[in-house]
């Protein structure tokens, strides 16, 4: 799987460059078409956002529309998975309607993804700002902890922690969120390093602003746009990580509907006779991650000064 870690490491550079460009005075910003026009032209982003919105709609409204609950069993199709007009996506080995489970799975997946991203970004901003602003031993301590955590490959650490805390929807959400904090701390810290040298901070300080005021009135608000960008970039990875953990049996526990878990364990014995068990959850999962990645891709393009220059005359 595309790992959280290395993706984020390369993101650090990208985001820092991007934020610096956004903050550059008007005359120094790369010339080109305005952001809004380019957004409008960028079909990639529109498609991605469309997919995500559709999935969000399915997650919010879908469970009320589909014929059965994700857990209700249809007695005649019990044991023998079958495909019929009543069950267009088929039923699983317990006679549950796969369409209903896929739809409810959207809720599980997006709920975990969005909450986890929020936790990760808020935590990352908090520790990043503290670490970057205070420097000294606070920074040293936080950075050493971050270093230790990111030196364990993400999926390996997630499996160990997940096995340690036991799997439930709440635990998986918290776990993914907390494990996202260290790498985001690094990104935010590097931004704060340059931010705190800005003139307005010096001005505020010379007016007698306290640390508390500088932090809460000036520095935290200054990372809000960055936080939005980071959240968008991280969403796809979070959804993928949840699915992978659930697939391995240490994520969302049965009988909760989860795209990852529905393809794993005992269900695999039935794939040969009921391929729809593997196909539909996989399509839903891939589509959602694709949507998130397309949006992330567009944001990267929009904030990357380099992407603009590529348009003209490299060849």
């Amino acid at each position, binding site marked *: *799987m*595309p790992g959280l870690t290395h993706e984020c490491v390369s993101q650090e550079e990208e985001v820092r460059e991007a934020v610096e460009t956004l903050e550059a005075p008007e005359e120094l910003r790369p010339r080109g078409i305005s952001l809004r026009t380019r957004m409008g032209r960028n079909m990639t982003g529109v498609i991605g956002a469309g997919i995500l919105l559709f999935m969000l709609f399915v997650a919010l409204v879908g469970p009320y529309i589909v014929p059965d609950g994700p857990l209700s069993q249809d007695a005649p199709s019990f044991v023998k998975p079958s495909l019929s007009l009543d069950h267009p996506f088929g039923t699983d080995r317990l006679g549950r309607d796969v369409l209903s489970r896929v739809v409810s799975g959207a809720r599980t997946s997006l709920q975990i993804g969005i909450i986890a991203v929020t936790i990760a970004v808020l935590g990352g901003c908090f520790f990043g700002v503290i670490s970057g602003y205070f420097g000294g031993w606070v920074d040293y301590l936080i*950075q050493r902890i971050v270093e230790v955590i990111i030196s364990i490959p993400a999926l390996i650490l997630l499996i*160990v*922690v997940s096995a340690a805390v036991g799997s439930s929807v709440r635990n998986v959400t918290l776990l993914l969120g907390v494990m996202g904090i260290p790498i985001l701390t690094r990104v935010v810290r590097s931004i704060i390093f340059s931010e705190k040298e800005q003139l307005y901070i010096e001005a505020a300080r010379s007016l007698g602003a306290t640390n508390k005021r500088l932090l809460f009135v000036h520095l935290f608000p200054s990372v809000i746009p960055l936080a939005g960008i980071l959240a968008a970039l991280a969403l796809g990875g979070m959804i*993928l990580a949840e699915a992978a953990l659930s697939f391995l049996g240490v994520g969302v526990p049965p009988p909760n509907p989860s795209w990852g878990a529905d393809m794993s364990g005992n269900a695999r014995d039935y*794939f040969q006779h009921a*391929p729809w068990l593997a196909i539909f959850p*996989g399509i839903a999962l891939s589509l959602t991650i694709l949507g998130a990645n397309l949006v992330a891709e567009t944001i990267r393009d929009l904030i990357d000064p380099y992407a603009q220059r590529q348009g003209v005359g490299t*060849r």
Partner: protein
Amino acid sequence: MIGYIIRRLAALVPILIGVSIIVFVLTRLMPGNIAQIMCGPNCEPEQLASLEHEYGLDKPKLEQFTDWVSGAVRGDLGRSFLRDRPVADEILDRLPVTGQLLIMTVMASAALGIMNGMLSAAFHRRFLDNALRVVSIFGMSVPTFWVATLVILLPSLWFAYAPPFTAVGLLENPWDNLRQFGPPALVLGFSSSCGLSRVVRGSILGVLNQDFMRTARAKGLGEATILRRHALGNVMLPIITVIGMEVATLMGGAVIAETVFNLNGLGRLFMESALMRDYPVIQVMTLYTAAIFVTLSLLVDLAYAWLDPRVRLTGGRSA
């Protein structure tokens, strides 16, 4: 240079100590222990106590930690509770499987990634470029465990094909061995080549309009030669970084691929141990993975210095 390597190696020590503490604490946080699992649901308290004593779980936590660390430093990695044999033996038994898988994966990933990235750059903003970029963003979005599942499922449905079920060594029967390792290596390799091809594309586009490229063109070299000889050499550094970091994430990928493709390697060992609370194995494997990861990033930094004379290595760490 030597001084730099020594400083960097020294900086690894506190990191690995930190990792070992984290892993130890985590494994002790796990609800239930191996004694309870071995003892089963109808467990007598005395039986449980004697099992816990046998596994050394009744000792104070601090003593368990110091025992483990002092053992690990002396090369004694402890015994697996579950399999009742030294962890080192268990790991060595499975290493060839995961080793072969990872080597083949990295080869597939590098080949696909560099080829697609170069093609994309050469046909910048034309059809092939766009097509390859769509493929790469699809490849990054589709989970490996699903692709792997389909790679097993679809041929079995359509052609009633199944790879050989029992493990075969590469030297015993190369054909059967490749039928076992080829698909997982290709699935993992393709997935990680997607990130790589984007880096290759971006870096090549970055050097394409530099002066030395114009010179090469002026000399009358063909585009293909220019790309291969002049552009690729100049973008080796980011490529090496990405491949180096990939290996680390591939260890996570190995867990998934070995589970789906039923390969008896380190990934499976890790997963089984995590589910059965086999502490010694989890501790050692996590620590080793972290050690390999930090060593790889050190090697990547050194490769930079070696390949690019402009890089000067200073300072203790590249923060």
